């Protein structure tokens, strides 16, 4: 093979004008000032809130769209009557049961799948398939099988979160570097010790991240279950308010649903940051 010795005399490469320097706010990944950050964060909440307010005033029909103040007043009223607390607890309890069961089973299963190739080969195909069956479509079946009490609602939340949490946990576990596992063997660790002292602590922050993502789904599906068939819970409260055209009550329930979801998220984020201080 001969190499060319002289570069041919091509025409000059076309030129582009040099790019202008962009302000931080429009530059990729460039940090913005604290003040700009704070202003944007406030605007993030305030702008939609104001838009809601303006729309409500413009429509001026509380049965279609109540103002934020009317919604909050309705919420206070519901709280005073005790209905809000009862409904909130009913929903939270279902999530604790259904999602708690999903965590209790999916974390060990995900650990098994992520740690042993045999576990992966045995469970990944079936779980990968089942997770694409929309959980909500099981609701009529669950009612037929389990009745109208708590069981079908808890089960729906379980179905909606179990498969995803299993696969996400398995992925986190599979992400433990092989070097770390190998070096543990050379330090005298046995298989069970590697799982307990290396794989689990290394995976813990990622497992909590998975739980955080699926907690949002769990919280969403309890409302779905209660909208379909229930005589308690925040979803039931929305249904009931709709029947009587109490739109302000619906908005009050929505706000409470949003706030509780937000609180769950913050709680899990704080836990994750504490557990994953080493990351």
């Amino acid at each position: 093979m001969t190499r060319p010795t002289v570069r041919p005399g091509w025409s000059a490469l076309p030129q582009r004008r040099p790019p202008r320097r962009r302000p931080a706010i429009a530059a990729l990944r460039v940090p913005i000032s604290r003040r700009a950050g704070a202003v944007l964060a406030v605007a993030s909440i305030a702008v939609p809130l104001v838009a809601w307010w303006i729309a409500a005033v413009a429509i001026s029909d509380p049965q279609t769209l109540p103002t934020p103040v009317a919604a909050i007043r309705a919420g206070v009223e519901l709280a005073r009557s005790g209905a809000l607390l009862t409904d909130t607890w009913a929903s939270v309890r279902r999530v604790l049961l259904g999602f708690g069961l999903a965590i209790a089973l999916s974390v060990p299963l995900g650990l098994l799948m992520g740690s042993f190739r045999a576990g992966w080969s045995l469970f990944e195909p079936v779980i990968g398939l089942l997770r694409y069956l929309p959980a909500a479509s099981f609701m009529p079946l669950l009612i037929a099988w389990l009745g109208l009490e708590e069981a079908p609602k808890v089960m729906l939340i379980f179905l909606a979160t179990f498969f995803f949490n299993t696969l996400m946990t398995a992925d986190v576990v599979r992400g433990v570097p092989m070097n770390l596992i190998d070096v543990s063997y050379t330090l005298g660790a046995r298989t069970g010790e590697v799982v307990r002292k290396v794989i689990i602590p290394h995976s813990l922050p990622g497992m909590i991240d998975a739980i955080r993502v699926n907690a949002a789904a769990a919280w969403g599906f309890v409302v779905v279950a209660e909208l379909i068939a229930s005589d308690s819970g925040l979803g039931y409260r929305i249904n009931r308010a709709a029947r009587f055209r109490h739109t302000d009550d619906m908005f009050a329930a929505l706000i409470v649903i949003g706030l509780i979801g937000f609180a769950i998220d913050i709680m899990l984020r704080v836990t994750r940051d504490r557990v994953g201080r080493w990351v």
Partner: protein
Amino acid sequence: MSGRGALELVDVGKRYEGGVTALDRISLRVERGSFVSIVGASGSGKSTLLSLIAGLSAPTSGTVLLDGHPVTGAGPDRGLIFQQGAVYPFRTVERNVAFGLELLPRLSRAERRTRVDWYLAETGLTTLRKALPRQLSGGQRQRVAIARALACEPEVLLLDEPFGALDVQTKEDMQVLIRQIWADTHITAVIVTHDVEEAVFLGQRVVVLGSHPGRIVADLPVPLGDDRDLSTKRLPEFLALRAQVEDLVRAFHAAA
């Protein structure tokens, strides 16, 4: 027969599924307390060789003997240092070093502590004992890995390109450190590296591997004595051997 503490490879071969031969009939004897460098280009199977000695994978032919007993799996009698990243990110420096000791049932907390303290001091990590790995430099992390392996009091320390990811100055500091540790602990040390200078500086012997398949093509004594420092790298004997080994590595590196 092999004597006490010697590491011996007898006709060791490794074929992967699919028929690629990584190592072909490697026979090598490493005396107790000696320091052997294994040098070769990529594709010479040098990391595979070390994982066979460590017991992390099994040879497809031949045997690895330690103290005359065949190696059947990984164990704390053969410490292994990887190129990078094999410290536990969720453990502080001192708890990394304590890992192997925590697994031993009849070692008191006080005894564990004494030992951890000694190895932290030996590797210059005492002031960093409470630090997490993410707060450490690459060189400091390798010190943790070394201290952690040594704490198990292995008979053999296996080093797999341990300083390949470090900058040149840090790498040289680490080379001096590993020579000191070797002198202080009378451990048997085997390092694999593609860095010929490193191989000659560290080893009492340099074993050269050829590529595709990995096989021993030369086994040269290093005529430098055991009292070495960085100025040793400027001695004519050093430079001559380095040049000789470099030519061998090149000659047996299948054209890439």
